[in-house]
């Protein structure tokens, strides 16, 4: 067992109001620069919907993530190493700016400089790509709140996977928001595809970063990431991505998107995982087994054996304690309500989601029944196959059982806690038992999901400067990493120098 630490996030989708505050604050922090106008490290999509960039989940088209060969080995869906190099001069499946959207500004000067005239001057939209006047026809959230209707929504690749009947009923049945950042995967396809070895995973906290000094602009990562969370800066010629706000995390502060989230639905914390098992877990044959394989990678931080293994890897006491207090393990393992996004891409994503129960509640309420009642909800989860099936395509490679389990637990919590909050004499403990939880579990889950304070939602141990040197010594690389060796980017080969996630623009430089 080789224990490594990973900063992970859980988002409780029930509470997302789709306000895009997270996206805007993230943009103001990281991507309000020329060349990155079109990039949203954090974006919020309405589902069903095409997402951003359009239809990115259609991996037959975009070739993101990994494929498993019959012999059990994984290779990048876009092609192996040789093919990757052979197509280096022009990436055959790179999304164009139109697949994201053409960024624009307005000719604001017109508003103040226009000569006196009969008609009010207008600020025309100007493309930031061509510099010309443009018509705005798409954006990162053009289909927000199902805008554009069924024509747009039915092009959702997730929806297209479902049966015809489902599609039609679906449009009437529900909608929810899906905020997305880079998943800081345990088996990142982006890093594997980078010809320069510029993308690396930090050995201390698992944050995946692009070394701006080593990136040479080959654009392979853009294709390889199945979540399309690598953005090519067309001004600097370098790839950029979500940094998990590492300068903040290092001093114990939450990411900007979490800090500013209006719904307070994001949880941050450390998890331990077994680095030796990652590849094995990512290669299991049946896609439906991927969820459990990924869950099993996340180790119980209270298990004395895990603690001992963590200590022997040089993980410090306060980090171990932080992992023990982390809300993430609780949501994944104890309450079993957090699920990964698209485990079938086999990158082992580390941003997890509590699936939304609200579509079910809404549809029960619409039929005139009590949407908070446990029995009504359970019955609805069973009968409302459509939302469950859709959520399963998102979170469990299409297996409805784990989604149903999570939703039933959320429903049980609602119903039980309502009894408690209404001061009923004997709250019905059988609802909890019916979903395999104790009353105590339900109370704890409710506290975490509904009441948790800042320091309970974000359990972030500050980084240790002295630790970096010690961790460098652990065997995370291969023997080729050594000095003069070809294992570019392994520990030690770059003299430990790691570039910032942000470009250091030279003053006065034109490009």
């Amino acid at each position: 067992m080789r224990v490594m630490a990973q900063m992970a996030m859980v988002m409780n989708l029930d509470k997302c109001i789709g306000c895009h505050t997270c996206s805007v604050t993230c943009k103001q922090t990281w991507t309000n620069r020329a060349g990155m106008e079109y990039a949203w490290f954090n974006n919020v999509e309405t589902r069903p919907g095409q997402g951003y960039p359009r239809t990115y989940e259609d991996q037959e088209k975009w070739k993101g993530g990994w494929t498993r060969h019959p012999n059990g080995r994984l290779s990048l869906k876009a092609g192996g190493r040789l093919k990757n190099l052979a197509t280096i001069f022009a990436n055959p499946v790179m999304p164009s700016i139109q697949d994201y959207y053409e960024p624009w500004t307005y000719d604001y000067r017109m508003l103040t400089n226009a000569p006196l005239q009969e008609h009010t001057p207008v600020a025309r939209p100007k493309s930031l790509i061509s510099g010309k006047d443009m018509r705005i026809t798409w954006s990162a959230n053009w289909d927000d709140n199902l805008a554009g209707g069924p024509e747009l929504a039915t092009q959702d690749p997730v929806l297209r996977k479902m049966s015809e009947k489902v599609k039609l009923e679906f449009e009437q049945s529900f909608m929810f928001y899906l905020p997305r950042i880079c998943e800081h995967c345990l088996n990142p396809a982006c890093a594997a595809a980078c010809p320069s070895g510029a993308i690396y995973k930090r050995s201390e906290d698992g944050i995946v970063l692009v070394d701006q000094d080593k990136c040479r602009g080959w654009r392979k990562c853009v294709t390889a990431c199945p979540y399309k969370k690598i953005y090519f800066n067309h001004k600097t010629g370098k790839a950029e991505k979500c940094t998990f706000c590492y300068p903040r995390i290092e001093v114990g502060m939450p990411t900007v998107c979490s800090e500013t989230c209006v719904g307070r639905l994001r949880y941050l914390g450390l998890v331990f995982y077994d680095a030796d098992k990652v590849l094995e877990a990512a290669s299991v044959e049946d896609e439906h087994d991927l969820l459990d394989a990924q869950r099993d990678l996340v180790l119980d931080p209270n298990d004395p054996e895990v603690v001992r293994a963590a200590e022997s890897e040089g993980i410090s006491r306060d980090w171990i304690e932080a992992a023990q207090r982390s809300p993430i393990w609780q949501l994944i393992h104890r309450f079993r309500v957090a699920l990964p996004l698209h485990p079938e891409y086999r990158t082992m994503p580390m941003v997890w989601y509590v699936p939304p129960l609200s579509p079910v509640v809404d549809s029960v309420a619409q039929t005139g029944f009590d949407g908070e009642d446990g029995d009504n909800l359970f019955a609805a989860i069973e009968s409302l196959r459509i939302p469950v099936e859709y959520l399963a395509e998102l979170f469990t490679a299409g297996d409805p059982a784990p989604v149903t389990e999570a939703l039933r637990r959320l429903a049980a919590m609602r119903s039980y806690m309502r009894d408690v909050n209404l001061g009923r004499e004997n709250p019905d403990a059988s609802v909890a038992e019916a979903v395999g939880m104790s009353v105590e579990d339900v109370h704890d889950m409710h506290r975490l999901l509904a009441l948790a304070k800042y320091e309970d939602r974000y359990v972030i141990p500050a980084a240790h400067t002295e630790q970096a040197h010690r961790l460098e010594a652990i065997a995370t690389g291969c023997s080729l990493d050594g000095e003069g060796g070809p294992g570019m980017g392994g520990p030690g080969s770059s003299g430990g120098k790691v570039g910032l996630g942000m470009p250091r623009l030279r003053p006065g430089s034109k490009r």
Partner: protein
Amino acid sequence: MNTIDLVLWVIAPYTCIAVFAVGHYWRYRYDQFGWTTLSSQLRESRLLRWGSPLFHFGILAVIGGHVVGLFIPKSWTAAVGITDEMYHVGAVGMGLVAGVATVTGLVLLIIRRRLVGPVFRVTSRMDKAMYLALGLVILTGMINTVHGNIIGHYDYRDGVAVWMRGLFVFDLHPELMAKAPLSFQAHTVAAYLLFALWPFTRLVHVFSAPVAYLWRPYLPYRSRDTGFGGRRERRGWERIDGSTR
């Protein structure tokens, strides 16, 4: 040998080689962030997908041909039993194919640069200078292939190649270049000027050809940077603990 020959075939080439070497060292040392292909594929993909592979594979073959033609003396190929005629046919044949691919690719890429608005908008003055030099070198090179081999006859392996190998061992033969046909002279001048320009353009990406990708581990782990802002300390401003990074 007059002064002009000395300048053209000794002083200028050495100056350009020096600029090439020192320029690359300087750029690599101080401008890692600017060291990139500066791809514009995000802005335009359709023309690029034809032009770029044509140009790149073509130019790789052309470079290979040059290495063989310029650096392998006639006596060596003769020793392994390749006659002049065989060599000639092979070189012209492969050279034409590679040349046509390169020129087609380059023309497509230049058309794309100029006519596709979003791409032209991010074309710097340095890019234009680079395209000009590259275009000249390739144009004169094509003229040489056609003119020197098919129409007329000039065996560069007895002239230009000997002069060039001499540059590297300080065995100078400017008189060989002075005797070469004008188009060969022009090609040579354009080439060394391109080399002088090289380190200051996006062409530096050639030296980052990621061959090591074929065997490096898929997932690089790296330790957190413990310095301040990832910047190397400047001389005289090192931290007190004396750690060298």
